[in-house]
Each structure stands twice: as structure tokens, then as C-alpha cells.
């Protein structure tokens, strides 16, 4: 099982932890809870809500500031020395060949790597002024603010309604509020019209593209600040992909979106900023990912600065 699958299994096997165990409580978070959960936690001691609320458009606002990030899997250095800032209400795409560390990097932003045995993140990720990797930060609360959508749609084996209501219920949302949350989330995810008449039916009855939009609706039902997407369209046909891309463009008015994609044209179409990662093998044959170039997407795809970026996006390097 790859680490990626391990995380996905952990997530979908979360098997609905008790509300009491979820550890989602405290100032400013009572209205919602973590979707990506499954771990008990000591409860938040540091408030990571920061500037997360309000969702006002401010071009210069930095959501994440990453400095000298290194990620290890036990002794193996998977990603080396990444420093970059993520701006609010932008779509930031991570591209690069297999093994370049882009998914590993994405998982740093909601401490998903904590769930992988032996994974270790060094360096600093500052989230709205809070150091994400300090012991006092509750990873569950982080994952509520920084939601995630996976490569393969992974709805819970429940009704469409309960998939969306799950997170808010955990967080103690009142029964009377749930209908509104479900409708609002499904509407934001451009799925409401297609499912409004069958909310109580199983989510497994939806098409792949619908399931993925359901997962996006589920991620935003807890009102996150950031949505991470790990190749969200790779299992979808072009029409479903187009719908998700439209959705991403709409969602960025409210959320900050980080997306890993193998599809460079998708990165070109939907992102504001692109980070290109590459992979380098040492003399031992160990392959470590690194950030090559981080720039506005329009620049990356018309006139990239680094010859390695140019070679990769024009297909001159295997």
C-alpha cells in the first residue's frame, strides 16, 4: 500500500468517530467539525482560526508561508528545501513528474503526513501567523480549516445527505441547521439540482463526477479556509473534469485552493500560480523532489525562467 492509499484508507475507514472524541470544540469552531478525521486529539490549545473567517478578497494576503520545508519518510528524504507563499483566494497548482514530491508537499498543509508512519516534516509552515507544526496545534482542527479532496471520489457509505451533514453534525450543528448546510454545500459544489430529489439515497448511486463534487461539497460543508485537491479529476471523464474545473474557479472566491495535477493543461486552465517540482536522484539512487520554479501560471506556460520547467512542460524531458 502506498502512503497515498494509506491516507485514503484511513480517511474513508474513519468510520464515523464519536462526536465526543472528535476534539472539535473551542472558540470559533463550534459550528462545524472535521471531515478528515479519525484521530482523537487533546483538543486545540492554539487557535488556528487566524484570519480564516470573513473570506474577504485581499490580493496580498498570505495564507501559508513555507520556509525550508524538508519531508522525510523515515530516513528517506522525499522533498528538499521548499520555500514558497500561498496567497488567499488563489488557485495554486503543483505540477511535476511522478516522485517529485508534489503530493507529499500538498499533505504538509493539513498535517496529513502525521498520519503516515515515519513521515517527518522539517522547516516551517506558517498558517495565518500560526506555526502549523508546533505541538500545541491540534491537527484535527487544522484539517477542519484545511479540507482535502482526493484523487478517487471517496463518499462515505451513507446517503448523499448524510455525507454532507456528517462533518457539521460532528461539530454539533443543530438538526434544524443541517438542511440549510446540506443545500448550501451542494449548491456551492454545483450538485444540488442533480440530487435534490434523492438526498436520502446512497451516495454510491452517483456517477464518478457527481461523487467527486459530493466530496467537494462535503469538504466545504464545514466551512474550511483552504481546500487541498490531490488530482481531483484524474478518475473523471472530460465533461465531469470540466464541471470540476468550473467549480474550482467559482470556489476560489471563498476559499484558497491548492491542487496537485498531472494534467498540465488543467493547471494552465485553472490556476493563478504554478509550482513546478522536479526530482533528482543522488549517487545512492534515492530520488528527492525539489521546487524548481514558482511563478504566475501565465508566465510558467508562456515564458518559464528555468530550462527544466521549459523542458518538462514542452515534453522534451521524460
Amino acid at each position: 500500500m502506498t502512503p497515498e492509499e494509506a491516507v485514503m484508507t484511513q480517511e474513508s475507514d474513519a468510520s464515523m468517530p464519536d462526536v465526543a472524541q472528535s476534539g472539535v470544540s473551542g472558540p470559533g469552531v463550534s459550528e462545524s467539525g472535521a471531515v478528515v478525521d479519525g484521530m482523537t486529539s487533546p483538543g486545540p490549545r492554539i487557535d488556528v482560526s487566524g484570519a480564516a473567517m470573513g473570506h474577504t478578497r485581499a490580493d496580498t494576503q498570505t495564507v501559508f508561508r513555507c520556509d525550508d520545508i524538508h519531508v522525510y519518510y523515515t530516513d528517506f528524504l522525499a522533498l528538499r528545501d521548499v520555500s514558497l507563499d500561498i496567497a488567499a483566494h488563489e488557485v495554486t497548482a503543483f505540477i511535476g513528474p511522478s516522485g517529485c514530491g508534489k503530493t507529499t508537499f500538498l499533505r504538509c498543509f493539513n498535517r496529513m503526513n502525521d498520519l503516515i508512519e515515519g513521515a517527518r516534516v522539517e522547516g516551517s509552515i506558517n498558517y495565518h501567523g500560526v506555526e502549523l507544526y508546533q505541538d500545541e496545534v491540534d491537527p484535527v482542527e487544522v484539517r477542519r480549516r484545511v479540507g482535502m479532496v482526493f484523487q478517487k471520489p471517496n463518499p462515505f457509505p451513507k446517503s448523499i445527505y448524510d455525507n454532507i451533514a456528517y462533518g457539521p453534525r460532528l461539530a454539533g450543528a443543530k438538526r434544524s441547521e443541517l438542511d440549510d448546510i446540506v443545500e448550501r454545500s451542494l449548491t456551492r459544489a454545483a450538485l444540488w439540482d442533480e440530487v435534490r430529489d434523492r438526498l436520502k439515497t446512497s451516495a454510491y448511486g452517483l456517477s464518478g463526477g457527481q461523487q467527486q463534487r459530493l466530496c467537494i461539497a462535503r469538504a466545504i460543508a464545514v466551512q474550511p479556509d483552504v481546500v487541498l485537491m490531490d488530482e481531483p479529476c484524474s478518475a473523471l471523464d472530460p465533461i465531469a473534469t470540466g464541471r470540476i474545473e468550473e467549480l474550482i474557479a467559482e470556489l476560489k472566491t471563498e476559499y484558497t485552493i491548492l491542487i496537485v495535477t498531472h494534467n498540465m493543461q488543467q493547471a494552465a486552465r485553472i490556476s493563478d500560480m504554478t509550482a513546478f517540482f522536479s526530482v533528482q536522484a543522488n549517487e545512492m539512487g534515492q530520488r528527492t523532489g525539489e521546487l524548481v520554479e514558482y511563478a504566475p501560471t501565465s508566465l510558467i506556460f508562456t515564458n518559464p525562467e528555468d530550462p527544466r520547467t521549459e523542458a518538462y512542460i514542452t515534453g522534451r524531458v521524460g
Partner: protein
Amino acid sequence: MTEEVRTEFHQLMDEVRADLVQMGGMVAEGISAVTAALLAGDIGGADQIITADDELDLLSIETEEKCVRLLALQQPVAVDLRTILTDLRMISEIERSGDLVTNIAKAVARLHGVELEPRVRGLIDRMRQQAVKLTAMAMDAYAEQDAGLASVLNDMDDVLDDLHNEYIVSVFASHELGKISIQHAVQLAVVGRFYERIGDHAVNVAERVEFLVTGELPEHLGANRARARREQDEM
């Protein structure tokens, strides 16, 4: 380690480049041929040149179709995108230069029997030389993707512009001396203008080559003035 993973795409791009270099060569040869016909009053030769322009038109359409196919099917980015955009612009520039050669060829019949003064003949030949040189240099800069070479074209074009001015003065001096009619003087002046325009198209090609290599669009004085005005208005 560089490995090519889009072989067919890049082969088609190479084909387009070869087409363009061939088109540039056809224009350069055309300039020399039409000048020879003009100076010799060779109407038959001029007619052949007019016919030959059809080949250039056909090649330019075929090349443009290849570019459209590349854009539609291959989603070019970065240097590939800049190359194809450059190619499309260059097709028009070269095709237009070919039309100017044709225009000179058409003037041969209109100037038939006109005795040209040695000074005028000499200036026509020197304009030919410069127009060929600029066209060939622009195409070399493109083929070699040499932004440095491309960047000198604009200054070099001043030589052709000066020759053109000198030529116009000579043509009308010739008319004032009663050697040629006003109709023929105007006809000759227009011919000079065609050479001068061929030089401008070569400069345009060179500017596009600079964009291809550097990603910078050519800076124009006028555009800069307009930008400054726009910024002032916004303040």
C-alpha cells in the same frame, strides 16, 4: 538527460520552420530576379515572377494550416507556443514581401521602354542588395533563433531607408531634367517604396524572432507613449 516525449509534435514544428525558411528564400530570390527583370525591361521574366508568387501563396496557406493544427491538437506552451505564434506572424510578413516583389514585377511592363539614368539604376540595384540582405538576415536569425542577430535588423534598415530617400530625389531630378515623364517618375517612386517596404517586413520578422527567443514583445516608442498616457489618466 534529455529525452523527447513529443516527437511527432516537434517534428511537425520543424517542418513548419523548414517551410518558412523556404518561403524566405523564395522572397530573397524573387527580389533579385525582379530587379534583374526591371533593369533589363524583361516583361517575360517579370510575368514568370508574377506566376511564381502563386507558389509562395500556396506554401503560406499550407504552413498556416500546419500551425492551426499544432495549436488545436498539441496544446503548445512556452517556447513551443512562442514559436508557433511567431510562425503565424512570419507567414504574413513573408507572404506580403512576396506580394511586393509581384508589385515590382507588374511595374516592369508599365515602365517598358523607359530609359533609366545610371544613377537611378545604381540606386535600384543597391536597394535590391539591402532588401535581400535584410530578408536573408531575418531568416537566418529565425532559423538559428538568434536574438542578437535579430536585434540589429532595425538599425540596418536605416541604410535601405536612406537609399530610398536618395533614390526618390534622383528620380524626380531625372524628371525635372526632362528625361522621364511625371507618370514614369511616379511609377518609379512607387517601385522604390516597394523595396523599402520589403525591408520593413524583414524588421518585423526580426522583432518576432526576438519575441520567440526572449518572450518579450517588441517595444514600440508609440506604444510606450500611449501606456504612459493611460497610466496618467488612471491616476
